[in-house]
């Protein structure tokens, strides 16, 4: 273990106690990157010069006794769909492999304003289309826990970067599970906030009514700290909420779990769920019971329709959102889109076309209401729901090349959350052989504070989140 394997909270403490400097940690992260990025393929673009300069500024301010903002000196990575001013942003696609945004996303500006150090842009499935990180035009992301396995997706690079110590936190996006899935694969905490809690302005849109701007960290506490920074109304995003931001860190030291009602959606625990994974989740459920929560079964009856509803709506929105890539103001010709992007654009265009709109897009939007109502009814009785994140055994890289379409079917445990606009917190809860496995806590809209408390209570009595990948342990 090294200083880069600590949590943000531990690092801030070390800064305060003057045990380490910001430049030290930033350099240490770059050393990890130098050693491992070639084989893991997490970072696509590095921001080394700027990062070191900013680290120096932070250290200077500290020496002068100036009060430091919450994330001062903390190295962070950004999924390469976050626009960063004059720092290459590719969406992991060849079609914009040379694109330099003339502006930065609101979240990026917020992170910079609280002192975070942007280490670089990380790999993902191109345009966030995928769940394994294999759809990147710049090569797959490998799982730091075992290089033969995928790191999950679409925010695979974000997860891998934190897992191997290339940064302490990474921003990702979650449209159908894309933060929770890689968090599970890489033993991290991954938050998908309520839709509208964090500004989407400046992040390349995938499914406009589904995209949530979230992040991956090592602990629940870190996760709550970061949300305190990124959450809030943005006048540049008409779908961002004006609801005041909660004090997420307030009750973490004494999370109130007693009497909390946690539901297990029976449709997520059916035949399709891998039995070993099921065992891990149920074990966690038992631990919640031991902590004083009341765990019971609940039904989300329309779950079976998740895949068609999610894919029809998401593809329709994608087909429109990717129409601006025409090679006139930026990027290359449309032929440079990867296969997955083309497929989704074709599907979405079809679903919106004359004669098919009613049967596909409109119908899917109506069934979406039914899925939302399932959750509303469940939350009338329960405070939170506990569910798996990855329902099948972890995938190796290059597995089932011919069955790419089958991947779509695995989104049934993560997709409904996006369709309903709810928050969900993914937490490490064990291992499937040598690969980490996570679970998710789903709550009603704007219940992130409660989810953090429940997650913290779990992390207080377990140590999954403290484990580090073998390659890191070897380094010492």
């Amino acid at each position, binding site marked *: 273990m090294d200083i880069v394997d600590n949590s943000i909270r531990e690092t801030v403490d070390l800064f305060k106690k003057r045990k380490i400097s910001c430049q030290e940690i930033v350099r240490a992260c770059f050393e990890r990157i130098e050693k491992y990025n070639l084989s893991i393929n997490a970072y696509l673009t590095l921001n080394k010069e700027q990062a070191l300069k900013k680290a120096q500024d932070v250290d200077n301010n500290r020496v002068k006794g100036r009060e430091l903002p919450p994330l001062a000196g903390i190295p962070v990575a950004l999924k390469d769909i976050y626009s960063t001013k004059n720092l290459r942003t590719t969406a992991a696609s060849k079609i914009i492999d040379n694109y330099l*945004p003339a*502006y930065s996303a609101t979240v990026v500006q917020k992170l910079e304003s609280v002192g975070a150090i942007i280490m670089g842009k990380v790999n993902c499935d191109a345009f966030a289309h995928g769940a394994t990180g294999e759809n990147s035009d710049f090569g797959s992301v490998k799982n730091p826990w075992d290089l033969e396995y995928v790191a999950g997706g679409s925010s695979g690079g974000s997860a891998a970067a934190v897992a191997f110590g290339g940064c302490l936190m990474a921003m990702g996006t979650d449209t159908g599970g894309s933060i929770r899935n890689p968090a599970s694969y890489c033993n991290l905490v991954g938050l998908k906030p309520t839709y509208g809690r964090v500004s989407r*302005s*400046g992040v390349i849109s995938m499914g406009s009514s589904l995209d949530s701007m979230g992040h991956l960290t090592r602990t629940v506490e870190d996760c709550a700290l970061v949300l305190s920074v990124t959450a809030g109304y943005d006048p*540049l995003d*008409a*779908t961002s909420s004006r609801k005041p931001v909660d004090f997420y860190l307030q009750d973490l030291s004494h999370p109130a779990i007693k009497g909390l009602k946690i539901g297990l959606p029976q449709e997520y625990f059916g035949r399709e769920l891998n039995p070993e994974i099921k065992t891990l989740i149920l074990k966690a459920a038992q631990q919640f019971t031991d902590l004083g929560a009341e765990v019971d079964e609940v039904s989300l009856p329309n779950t079976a329709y998740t895949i068609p509803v999610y894919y029809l709506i998401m593809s329709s929105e994608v087909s429109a959102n990717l129409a601006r*890539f025409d090679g*006139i103001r930026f990027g290359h010709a449309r032929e440079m889109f990867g296969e997955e992007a083309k497929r989704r654009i074709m599907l979405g265009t079809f679903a919106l076309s004359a004669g098919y*709109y009613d049967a596909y897009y409109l119908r899917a939007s109506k069934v979406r209401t039914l899925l939302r109502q399932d959750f509303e009814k469940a939350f009338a009785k329960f405070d939170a729901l506990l569910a798996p994140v990855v329902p099948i055994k972890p995938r190796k890289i290059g597995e089932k090349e011919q069955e790419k379409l089958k991947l779509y079917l695995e989104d049934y445990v993560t997709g409904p959350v996006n369709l309903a606009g709810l928050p969900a917190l993914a937490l490490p809860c064990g291992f499937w052989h040598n690969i980490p496995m996570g679970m998710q806590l789903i709550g009603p809209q704007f219940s992130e504070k409660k989810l953090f408390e429940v997650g913290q209570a779990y992390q207080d009595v377990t140590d999954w989140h403290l484990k580090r990948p073998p390659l890191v342990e070897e380094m010492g």
Partner: protein
Amino acid sequence: MSGYRPFIGLEIHVELATKSKMFCGCCADHFHKEPNTQTCPVCLGLPGALPVPNKKAIDWTVFLGLVLGCRINKHSYFERKQYFYPDLPKGFQISQYERPFCFKGWFDEVNITRVHLEEDTGKLIHRKIEGEKVTLIDFNRCGVPLVEIVTEPEIKSAEHAKEWLKKLQRVIRSLSISDCDMEKGSMRLEANVSVSKNGKLPSYKVELKNINSFRFVEKAIEFEIQRQTELFEKGQKIEQETRGFESDKGVTYLQRSKEEAFEYRYFPEPDIPPIVFTDGELDKIRKQIPELPEEKRQRFVKEYSLNEQEADYFVSNPSAAQYFEVLYLEKNFNLDFRETARLIINKKIDWENISPADFKAEVAVLQEGGLSDQVELAKAAKIVVDGNPKAVADYRKGKTNTVGFLVGQMMKKTKVDPNLARQELLKILE
């Protein structure tokens, strides 16, 4: 005639004179600006940039809709109209389809189908550079708010179209929401034309584009009616198509056939939440509707016994109309309405530069047969100045009250209002 009856519908686009664009804070005044100097990530369609609607543009659209007798959709939303064209950076235009802000209106005896709000596209310039045909794109105009007004196919003739459009333009200008100028491009027209023998609305319509003056509207529609009639008389079929108008030759030409028609794939804009109006808000907007041109014209004819041309003058010149009405406010003025109107219209009295009180005074003098004509006054003053060099010298030495003596001299010679006389003399003396 030929027995064929034309069915004409109009589509009018009006650029709103808001300060900022429809979905971003860029300056909306794009006339004669250096290319691509008024853009931002939103209106340039950069990845990740999101639209946020301009409240004033929405209010003005509802305002215009109410003026045009429309019903208002209390729950409304924007939609994406998808097609590829170099002047459309996002690959879709944010517009309205299913639930426009305004619908089912009526103006000057023509039913209005809808009035909705959308964003303008960029400007294209076609050039030949070093022998190669290129198209240059300027996005300064992209994102400016555009109101679209669509009529039912009830326009009866080319001339009717022209007259109706002129009236519409006058009304829109009177609301101060747009300068509605065809030359500047803040008013654009499209006409849909079809003909039928049996009096029933045909199943096809031909869209006419590229019409940029009232005169051309008339010519284009006339030509098109003739063209379609001839085709039918030859036994040929006419299908849905889009035609442009070539003003030099006065003909329409094929631009897009039915097969090449765009398929827009409308769906609700996910980046913009719906717009909801309360009754209270609509009432507030309704109360702001000013007296409209047609109403004003009729009132001036009725109340002041003016003829049509005189009434028209006051409708087209709001400051003159206001001045005219102020004259009669205090009820101490009893010149015949039409005489006053003539004095103002013909500028017999310099009303623009004198107060209503002075105007009344001048009229009083005129009634006594005194001098009021500017030129005559100036002549008379000069004569007095030339004939009294000592008094003029005294004035110039500082004895300013000698002007009173000069006024007296003028009044001896001719009937004139003392104040006007003094003014004229001072003009020469200063």
